[in-house]
């Protein structure tokens, strides 16, 4: 029977980060990936923030197959019939080291897998893990297509549904309020057309988030990232929010509705849809997390719930890579002690607590509760849109003065409401 130092279930960003780190230190590491290749089952919005993880993988970034570095940030607040867009250009965004990049996981993960193999990790794709092998309450390996494979430690990096963490008794039941669904299209576009349309030079890219009436008033938003020769366009909507919406839009309809908005339609014109994807996104934060470790097992990436939506940024990939890295560190420390018990592997949690990962999650633990409030998705966008409409309107007669124009939108009751919301927002 094959015995490894570590078996990693899932060859996505968390799993490959762990494998890359472990193999580099000479541990016998096996990654089992159920897709045809790493990236084949992965869906992301499309942007990675490199700063927090740059130093964890110092040799990795130079040749990484990113699409474009994000040189311009935009936010659009959408009301039903109008939208207000803010654009941010900052010199720091356009200078190396770049803060964030657009990317396609089909390419990125495939490449990262090869890098991990180069470090000595063993990668088997087209292999589905069916179960964990437990002995005396300890995880000692996995079953994959009838094969029994053993290891000192199993790292569950099998994505948001993490059947592995569930089978090891570490995962909390999946409560729909803690999850959102993302639907996305890759829209191919001639490179020149794309660069002209979005005013980009060379490898510059832009990222735009959409808030407000993107998802029919439900808790959610939209995103648009520019890749080399394509756009990543999608929506993210809370599963409960989708179900509670009185208009009862179906998930795929929401994306189509979004694409038909004139603001979007004009941006994607001339492009051709090349892929349609969707995935569940964990958004429950610390409150929804299960145990991150057990005897002989660690959980990393989406499987651990490491993904966060704080309105202006939606992040997951950095947390996946960092948690994979810290899982590897914990395994190496456990190996030095030759103790793979839960107590020994608890080091993983300590490492995470000290890192940006848990700091972020603790800092933003209220964000979901605060943001899950329809006022942020209907009231404010309409308010912003209406004020802009009146400010820019030049009627047939005399134009109103500016202050009364704004004031007219701010009744006393609304000001109290806004104050209340601001008070809530202080938590994030």
């Amino acid at each position, binding site marked *: 029977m094959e015995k490894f130092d570590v078996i990693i279930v899932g060859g996505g960003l968390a799993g490959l980060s762990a494998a890359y780190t472990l193999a580099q230190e000479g541990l016998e590491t096996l990654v089992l990936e*159920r*897709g*045809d*290749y790493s*990236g*084949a*089952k*992965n*869906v*992301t919005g499309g942007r990675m923030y490199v700063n927090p993880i740059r130093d964890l993988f110092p040799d990795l970034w130079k040749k990484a197959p990113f699409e474009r570095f994000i040189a311009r940030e935009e936010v659009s607040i959408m009301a039903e019939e109008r939208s207000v867009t803010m654009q941010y250009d900052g010199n720091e965004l356009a200078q190396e080291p770049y803060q964030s990049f657009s990317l*396609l*996981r*089909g*390419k990125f*993960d495939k490449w990262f897998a090869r890098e991990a193999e180069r470090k000595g990790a063993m990668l088997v*794709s*087209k*292999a*589905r893990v*069916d179960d964990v092998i437990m002995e005396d309450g300890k995880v000692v390996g996995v079953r*994959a*297509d009838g094969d029994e494979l053993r290891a000192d430690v199993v790292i569950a990096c099998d994505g*948001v*549904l993490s*059947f592995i963490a569930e089978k090891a008794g570490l995962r909390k039941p*999946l409560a*729909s309020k803690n*999850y959102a*669904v993302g*639907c996305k*299209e*890759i*829209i191919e576009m001639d490179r020149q057309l794309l660069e002209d349309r979005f005013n980009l030079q060379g490898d510059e890219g832009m990222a735009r988030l959409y808030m407000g009436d993107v998802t029919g008033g439900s808790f959610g938003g939209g995103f648009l990232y520019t890749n080399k020769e*394509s756009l990543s366009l999608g929506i993210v909507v809370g*599963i409960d929010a*989708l*179900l509670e919406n009185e208009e*009862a*839009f*179906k*998930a*795929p309809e929401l*994306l*189509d509705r979004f*694409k*038909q908005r004139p603001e979007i*339609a004009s941006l*994607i*014109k*001339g*492009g*051709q*849809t*090349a*892929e*349609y*994807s*969707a*995935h*569940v996104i964990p958004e429950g934060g610390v409150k929804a997390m299960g145990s991150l470790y057990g005897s002989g097992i660690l959980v990393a990436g989406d499987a651990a719930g490491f993904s966060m939506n704080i309105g202006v940024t939606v992040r997951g990939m950095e947390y996946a890579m960092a948690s994979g890295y810290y899982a590897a560190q914990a395994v190496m420390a456990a190996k030095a002690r030759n103790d793979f018990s839960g107590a020994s592997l608890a080091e993983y949690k300590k490492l995470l607590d000290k890192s940006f990962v848990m700091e972020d999650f603790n800092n933003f633990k209220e964000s979901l509760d605060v943001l899950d409030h329809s006022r942020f998705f209907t009231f404010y966008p309409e308010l912003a849109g209406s004020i802009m409409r009146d400010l820019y309107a030049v009627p047939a007669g005399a134009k109103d003065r500016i202050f009364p124009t704004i004031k007219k939108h701010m009744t006393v009751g609304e000001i109290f409401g806004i104050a209340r919301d601001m008070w809530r927002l202080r938590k994030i």
Partner: protein
Amino acid sequence: MSEVMGLKAKLGLNVFKEDKEFHIRIKPGREKDERLKKAVIVCPSGLYSANDAGDVEISVDGCLECGTCLIACGEEVLEWHYPSGGAGVQFRFG
């Protein structure tokens, strides 16, 4: 061509590799369970539908393995596992 295209046509752009068995099943006897109706709304591939008798049916062709139906409906009404190794959707872009 980037105008709204039909869902099936959109799914037709993806690569799906055949599996030996269906990886999602409605648990026998649960076809009328109210919880399943959620899947009709949330499934990004529109794979669930309710027939005239009120039974919810699923056709797994075009499943993106996103997990939304499992989370919305729960394990009591759905038998859900991943397709076998190398089967199911294979994203080229992701």
